[in-house]
């Protein structure tokens, strides 16, 4: 290679290079170019590693086996028994290798691990708590799942998730009290710990057990009946959902201070807004309200509003349609009825899905399709029944979770009052007979719900708990949304009052718009302000 001038930049006093100029580095230049090329080439050469011997060329028995041999049960569970994790809190040194190993040894996505580590803080002590799925005897995930995507293995007791069955509704992440199922947004499904069942079957330890430097996690065999008789023999820690609900099997040994509490107990974390679900709930409840009130209107002899049923039908379909946007795998939504024996989610889907054809039949104007009146009447009644059942199932869906902010009668009242208030304001805005009464009904229902909503916000006497957190969330990070909802609500009530007073339907149209906006914000707050239940977390 001939010697060539090399482009360089001179560096001025300003610290920034000046425009390039040619500088002759003399004989080095050619050599440099040549050496750079060789350096880049050699840096990409991976054969260097072959200079070294490789170990375990023919190894079949895992080299780690002696390390975990005594952290495993001697034999597989007998009938009536199952595998369980056992964690010695005294041995754990807080290093979190279990989290990293679970992530890496199971080939999980970049930020995904089925094991999490949190802290219990006591007066003078603290305990690091590692947790993943507790493989409950009566798993909350499985009882919530609408598609039967959970399978509790008869032989091992391991609660497996069927990834290809999951439609991504995330309901299990609410019904599991311990935050074991992990939502994987990019895949649109939930995944969770399977106790490395394949490894167990091959006599190997789960990744977390293998990786713990302190040997704080082991696999044991537990008696399911004994756990039913004494749930506290399983997972009992301060600040988590008590074990009676699902009979979790992980035993935590040697907690120094039973009066300690999770380090993140008071940390305010607004939850996900679940906008499609908020829309689904509000629209389906309004649809049911319109349907029922229209029946009542006709029953008292007021002039029928021909558009009430099509209007309700449109809201129902829109609600259900938008609701499917919540699903990570909407194409699998057809499986949602499978869990009807146990899951309020399935029942909600079944009720609302069944309502659709009846709503359709009852909504078709006579002018378009001459449906016999008897058929239309039956369809009308059945549609009303299924719509109401749908609203009921919606309420139960939330009340059946372990979340204290949802699992109370207030949820049913909230949904029922939305049904009444929404239906009334729509029928009032129709301008048909009974407009004033509808306006009044919407105001009454609205004020009753506002009392519920406001009561969630008031400071509470108890020092801690989910309801305290909910109130702090609504007064803190969610305060501006809560204020917006209140303002929208006040406008809606004012307009409805004007409408009822003056008898001018246009006011009720205004009320309808504000009321819809107010209800949608209220429902997103219903999601955002409800603290989830989980294992102790960290800061």
């Amino acid at each position, binding site marked *: 290679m001939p010697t060539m001038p090399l482009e360089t930049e001179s560096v001025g006093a300003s*610290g920034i290079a000046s425009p390039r100029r040619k500088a002759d580095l003399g004989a080095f230049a050619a050599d440099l170019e040549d050496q750079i090329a060789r350096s*880049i080439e050699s*840096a990409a050469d991976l054969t260097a590693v072959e*200079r070294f011997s490789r170990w375990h060329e023919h190894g079949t028995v895992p080299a780690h086996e002696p390390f975990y041999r005594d952290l495993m049960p001697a034999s597989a569970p007998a009938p009536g028994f199952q595998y369980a994790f056992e964690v010695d809190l005294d041995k754990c*040194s807080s290093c979190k*290798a279990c989290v990293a190993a679970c992530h890496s040894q199971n080939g999980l996505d970049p930020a995904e691990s089925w094991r999490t580590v949190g802290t219990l803080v006591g007066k003078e002590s603290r305990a690091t708590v590692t947790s993943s799925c507790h493989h409950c005897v009566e798993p909350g995930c499985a009882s919530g799942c609408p598609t*039967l995507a959970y399978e509790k293995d008869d032989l091992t007791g391991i609660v497996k998730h*069927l990834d290809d069955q*999951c439609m991504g509704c995330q309901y299990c992440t609410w019904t599991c009290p311990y935050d074991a199922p992990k939502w994987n947004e990019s895949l649109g499904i939930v995944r969770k710990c399977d106790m490395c069942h394949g490894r167990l079957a091959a006599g190997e330890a789960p990744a977390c057990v293998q990786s713990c430097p302190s040997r704080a996690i082991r696999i044991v065999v537990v008696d399911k009946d004994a756990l039913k008789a004494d749930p506290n023999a399983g997972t009992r820690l301060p600040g988590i959902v008590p074990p009676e609900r699902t009979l979790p099997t992980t035993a935590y040994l040697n907690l120094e201070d039973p009066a300690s509490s999770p380090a993140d107990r008071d940390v305010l974390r607004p939850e996900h807004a679940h906008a499609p679900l908020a829309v689904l709930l509000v629209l389906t409840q309004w649809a049911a309200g319109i349907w029922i009130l229209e029946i009542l209107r006709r029953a008292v002899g007021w002039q029928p509003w021909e558009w009430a049923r099509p209007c309700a039908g449109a809201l129902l379909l829109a609600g259900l349609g938008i609701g499917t946007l919540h699903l990570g795998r909407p194409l699998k939504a057809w499986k949602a009825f499978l869990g009807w024996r146990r899951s309020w989610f399935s029942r909600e889907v079944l009720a609302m899905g069944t309502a659709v054809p009846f709503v359709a039949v009852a909504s078709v104007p006579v002018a378009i399709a001459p449906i016999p009146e008897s058929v239309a009447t039956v369809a009308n009644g059945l549609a009303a029944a299924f719509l109401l059942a749908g609203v009921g199932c919606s309420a139960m869906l939330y009340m059946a979770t372990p979340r204290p902010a949802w699992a109370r009668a207030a949820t049913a009242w909230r949904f029922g009052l939305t049904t009444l208030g929404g239906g009334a304001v729509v029928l009032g805005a129709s301008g048909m007979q009974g407009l004033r009464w509808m306006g009044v009904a919407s105001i009454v229902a609205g004020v009753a719900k506002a009392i519920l909503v406001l009561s969630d916000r008031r400071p509470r006497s108890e020092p801690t708990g989910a309801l305290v957190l909910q109130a702090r969330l609504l007064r803190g990070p969610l305060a501006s949304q809560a204020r917006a909802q209140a303002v929208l609500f006040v406008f809606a009530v004012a307009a409805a009052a004007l409408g009822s007073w003056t008898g001018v339907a246009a006011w009720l149209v205004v009320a309808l718009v504000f009321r819809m906006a107010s209800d949608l914000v209220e429902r997103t707050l219903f999601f955002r302000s409800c603290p989830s239940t989980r294992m102790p977390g960290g800061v």
Partner: protein
Amino acid sequence: MIENFFRSFDGPLTRRLARAPGGLGLGQVPSDLVPVSTTTTVCGYCSTGCGLNVHLGREGAIDLTPDPAYPVNLGVACPKGWEALSVLDSPDRGTVPLLRDRRTGERREIGWAQALGTMARAFADLKSVHGPESAAFLSTGQIPTEEMFLLGALWKFGLGFVHADSNTRQCMATAHVAYKQSFGYDAPPFCYEDFEESDVLVFVGANPCIAHPILWERVMRNRRSPEILVLDPRRTETAQSATRHVRIAPKSDLVLLYAVLRNVIERGWVDRAFVEASTSGFDGLRGFVATISDESALSQAKIPAEDLEALVQAFRPGRRVSCWWTMGVNQSHEAVRTAQALVDLCLVTGNIGKPGTGPNSITGQMNAMGSRLYSNTSGLVGGRDFANPAHRQEVSEIMGIPESSIPVAPSLAYDQILDAALEGRIKALWVVATNPEHTWIGSDTFRKVREKLDFLVVQDMYHSTETAEVADLYLPAAGWGEKEGTQINSERRIGVSKRVKRPPGQALPDFEIFRLLGVASGCGDLVERMSSPEQAFHLMRELSRGRPHDFTGIRDYAQIDASGGIQWPFPEGSITDGIRPGAQNAAGSRESRQGSGRRLFEDGRFFTPDGKARLLYDPPRPPGESPDALYDLVLTTGRGSSSQWHTGTRTEKSAILQAMSPRELFLEMNPDDAASRGLEPGSMVEVASRRGSLTARLVSTPNMAEGVVFLPMHDRRVNVLTFPSFDPHSREPSYKHAAVKVGKGPTKDP
């Protein structure tokens, strides 16, 4: 059930999580990550120096597991080790050199030839105009010894500059100086078996549960039911696991240790024979500590008398006592004397050179010791002194360089280099694999330095470090796993780190960058003798001959690898510690590897001219800044979690490590302190020192004593608060003592 007909028990999503036998002694692995072979390497984060078993696919590393046959970690690793490969894949990796354009201020991509030519010219111009003291490099404890060696040799013997230092100044300089003064050489005396062999372990300013989890594993393996004493202002994870936590007031360690010494001497628990034969300065020490009363120690340390008594009792004869320290000692205004108080305690009680004993410094970075021995910064290569003519002559002969090219004067220390830059005497800095913009102590000092510099070169894996972002020239470096070399861990074990992955784009191993700069600067002759890391290693080996760290018995990298690392000293003719066990009974042999560790000073002979260890001491001094009426709290800093490493340059690139780390900067404070200031737990608070302020989330915890608050060091803002004071011997900054005040944050708590 009819429902089963509609259930999918298998499918593409299920198969994503399938596991398959990995073979090669691995057990099951994710089925898309079944390796074709494996190779071993040593982790590149901390100085524990864990062995990792890298799973190789056709195109290099695909995964890793801890090496069950490595005598250090015995088959386990901390989260950082598990995630060592994933941080290599990041959009922040540098792939081409970047030069800042003078007009636009933007960085633009340039070729290596232009980058190296520019750099060579800049340094040559500076030297010819402003002399050999006008530029300096700041390097690291995070690259292999061979790279440090080449950099130091090129900088001083080739380019002819004088000043250079490394970020080990911020972590291990104290231990280095303490050992050198006391033992005559920078020689940590222990091996990891000592964790398992002690009857009493005294941890001072160390939190191995979080900072060195795998070393804590070794403590847990101790079968002697050891007494574990922890001296720390915080009730750390380690303090909680101890048999006794002595919660001392910050920086009261020195006076307390002197009080312990006095009690030990007064009670006659001195190993007379050993002190007589192997130490010097005992009478002076006895006279000095006689002036330290229990009362003054107790009142300064703010501990009950029973804590002092327990510490004294720890040293009663007949038990093996080991003392372990890290940054709580090293980063102090009187750090060297504090470390030496522990040295003195071990020396006078004869707790050295025997199993389960020793004043033992747990090193921070993975290759701090390589830096101390070969970086040619504060000492001449191979643990030598620049001022010593005989040393200069040895180096000149072994390296084949003129003696005149070896500077006579030692380098300025880190803080002095930055001071010189602020004064305009040093006009260019070359920063290699470290991030001073984040780490340097006290109120944005480095930012001011940057403004004064004519030329700042940053060489790093990532173009996005705080320091790289403000560089004039950025050079993209290969990272750990993309290059090879050796490193030396806390127990003096030399380990090999291998290239198992290709660096991204045109990123080059630091070794190659140094070599190429040598070529561009006309130092081809010098770098030619080091055409590969292993060749440089052979030269390093020659430089170790006859030195205390003599490893002339090491043949090559393959031998180190096959032996599971080799501890120095290992002079020519030594027998390998033990050949790594083969496939059949790897883990079984792991047990047989126990006891293979070697410790120093078993013969009571030290590296001083007279063979005696020095007992050194000084009267304790108050810290540079103490709380007052306005700034009424002491701020101490440290590691925040086991998943975070220093400035987060690497660990923040792993999503799972991030998920394990605190979500935001938090301040730990005693609940009474919080209550008296009207601060609600979990709220945002403002922390202010005389140098600046920041906001953090308040964690109210009884783990903190009243009057003391803690911030983790991984957030750049923290060093806006710290107070720049330095140990006079080691010039290590004191990150553990600044006066601050804490008040309500700017935004109202939710």
